[in-house]
């Protein structure tokens, strides 16, 4: 179930600000599992199911992905781009991309004076095979966004592809949703996280949950000379202690620890010094919201080859279900 959802979700187009298709894909999977499905003013998808305890539990996973926005269509038919979210130029070069209308493109850079490692976003372009501006504009216009073309591959319990950040979180959330929940449950698939965690705060403002648990990927440090991180693939989902956007309160840490133990899930502890998540935006809205985050270890984040261990995701599903049944 998780795997098939993952295939469907990673295939759906949805960079920040243009989430309609991923929203549709998630809606069709969420519909049988909830009472109402709503889209709010910024495009967040909110799936609601009432519970018995009188408390409100919000679970949040962002559905948007990073991309490249067209900023200019040149006379020679090439497209200039700007990053939507944290997409590094060096990672984008020599990649295949695809637009919302399905048109493919190739990303390369101006080879005259620099090597690929020194290229900046303004040196990049997308080649859609057009011979002039008119032909290019029939394919893509200013404001259109291309995403990595990188179909999901699963091998040996590892999944690799583009958009695992954070379609994996969405798939885990959908899977957890199938289980029972004591509380009024709001499963929120947030918009515009990659450009600054913009959808999450407004979504939480409208819900005012008693507890919110976000779900996102976190960088693993288990590859050669990786940026320091104690997180490794296959060692279980992680309890977020802190990241750039938030320090999770002791009370939430304890609750999540206890729930992991109750579910028999082995967990890791995440301390992230580079990067923020929806958790911070949610924690600071509406005069303060109690919030924490369950993180999914992921290698090569913000590249077309993001890699995760499905066992960690399964563990996260059990963990969240345990939270859904907890006393708040």
């Amino acid at each position: 179930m998780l795997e098939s959802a993952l295939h469907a979700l990673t295939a759906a187009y949805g960079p920040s600000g243009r989430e309609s298709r991923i929203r549709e894909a998630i809606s069709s999977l969420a519909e049988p599992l909830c009472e109402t499905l709503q889209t709010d003013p910024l495009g967040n998808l909110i799936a609601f199911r009432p519970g018995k305890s009188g408390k409100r539990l919000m679970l949040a996973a962002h559905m948007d992905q990073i991309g490249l926005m067209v900023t200019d269509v040149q006379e020679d038919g090439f497209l200039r781009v700007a990053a939507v979210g944290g997409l590094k130029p060096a990672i984008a070069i020599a990649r295949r991309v695809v637009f919302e209308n399905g048109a493919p493109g190739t990303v390369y850079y101006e080879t005259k004076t620099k090597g690929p490692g020194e290229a900046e976003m303004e040196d990049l372009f997308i080649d859609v095979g057009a011979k002039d501006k008119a032909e290019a504009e029939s394919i893509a216009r200013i404001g259109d966004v291309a995403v990595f073309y990188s179909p999901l591959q699963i091998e040996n319990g590892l999944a690799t592809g583009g958009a695992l950040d954070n379609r994996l979180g969405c798939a885990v959330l959908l899977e957890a949703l199938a289980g029972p929940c004591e509380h009024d449950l709001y499963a929120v698939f947030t918009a515009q996280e990659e450009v600054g965690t913009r959808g999450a705060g407004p979504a939480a403002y409208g819900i005012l949950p008693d507890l919110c648990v976000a779900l996102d990927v976190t960088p693993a440090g288990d590859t050669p000379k990786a940026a320091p991180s104690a997180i490794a693939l296959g060692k279980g989902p992680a309890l977020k202690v802190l990241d750039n956007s938030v320090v999770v309160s002791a009370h939430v840490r304890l609750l999540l620890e206890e729930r992991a133990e109750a579910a028999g899930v082995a967990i890791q502890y995440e301390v992230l010094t580079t990067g923020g998540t929806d958790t911070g935006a949610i924690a600071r809205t509406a005069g303060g919201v109690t919030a924490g985050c369950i993180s999914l270890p992921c290698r090569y984040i913000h590249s077309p080859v993001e890699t995760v261990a499905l066992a960690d995701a399964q563990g996260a599903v059990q963990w969240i279900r345990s939270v859904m049944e907890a006393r708040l």
Partner: protein
Amino acid sequence: MLERLKTLCALPGVSGHEGPVRAYLKKELAPLGLKTVVDPLGSLHVRRPGPGPRILLAAHMDEVGMVVSGIREDGTLAYSGAGLDARVLVGKRVRIGTGAPMAFGSFGTSASQGSIPGVIGCKAIHLQKEEEFKRTFPHEELYLDIGAKDKKEAAQAVRIGDPVWFDVEPMELGGLLCAKALDDCIGCAILLELLQEDYGCDLWAAFTVQEELGLRGAMATAHRAEPALALVLEGTTANDLPELSPPKAVTRVGGGAALTVMDARTLALPEMVAALIKTAQRHAIPYQLRQGTKGGTDGGAIHQACCGCPVGGVSVPCRYIHSPNSLASPADIRAAYELARAFLRDQMWNEVIRHA
């Protein structure tokens, strides 16, 4: 509208010291008989209550400027600024606002009353070593000089915290308007004009403060107004200089009203951009898309307030923005006004606001 714009541009309105601009706006709004409210941060709110969704129109009153932050032994002053590149400050004339801070007497409402002249100087080139020619003067090496011969004399003339603004009178330059503070007196002038009519919605206009410090007035404004949709009226960058590609140019003077697609603080929703384009095309109003992705507007704060709302940005290209002499085209200003007006009159919010 252009005459009002010139008057606005001549007024001092440094972030946090928007009083003169606010006073002028209140005066111009008086004949309309609309209720005005000033919030705790100083933003000016004007409403045309009505049926239909709450539509917020925002323009900011503040211009980039400085405050006096210290007095040196030799009588020159140190300053603290926001949004100002040290490279455009060299060799400029300024005025420094003096007099008691507000509430127990405000300082003057016109540029010349309650202010003294000053200049911003740097080490003469004759005194520089050749290696120094390549350096930019950082703010610490620029001297705000009011002519005081020592610290004591300076301290009698100015106070720590007094506002400092460029001393520039608006003028017409080859058919373009040349002035300080086009960002965002243009937005204020357009908003004043838009307020003359009713559009069949619950209209909320906000002349915000402290945009240049990080969209601060807008944060409080959006929370107060809780709009269903907002339009932000701004002056935006135009670097349409030789050899600069369109994304680096961002917008072109003479290219019409500029629509926000994505900047550093806002990602415009496709349906909003589409609605604005449709409006422009329907009424044959010249428009362009903003092709750069840096910079931010009040929209960045407004769209994330409370439960969020879609925000559109309608801007006028300004060359040399955030400098004492910025240029914009009256035709572009007219286009921006007409686009915003047509959007409202055609009630285009219906094509943007999601219906639950």
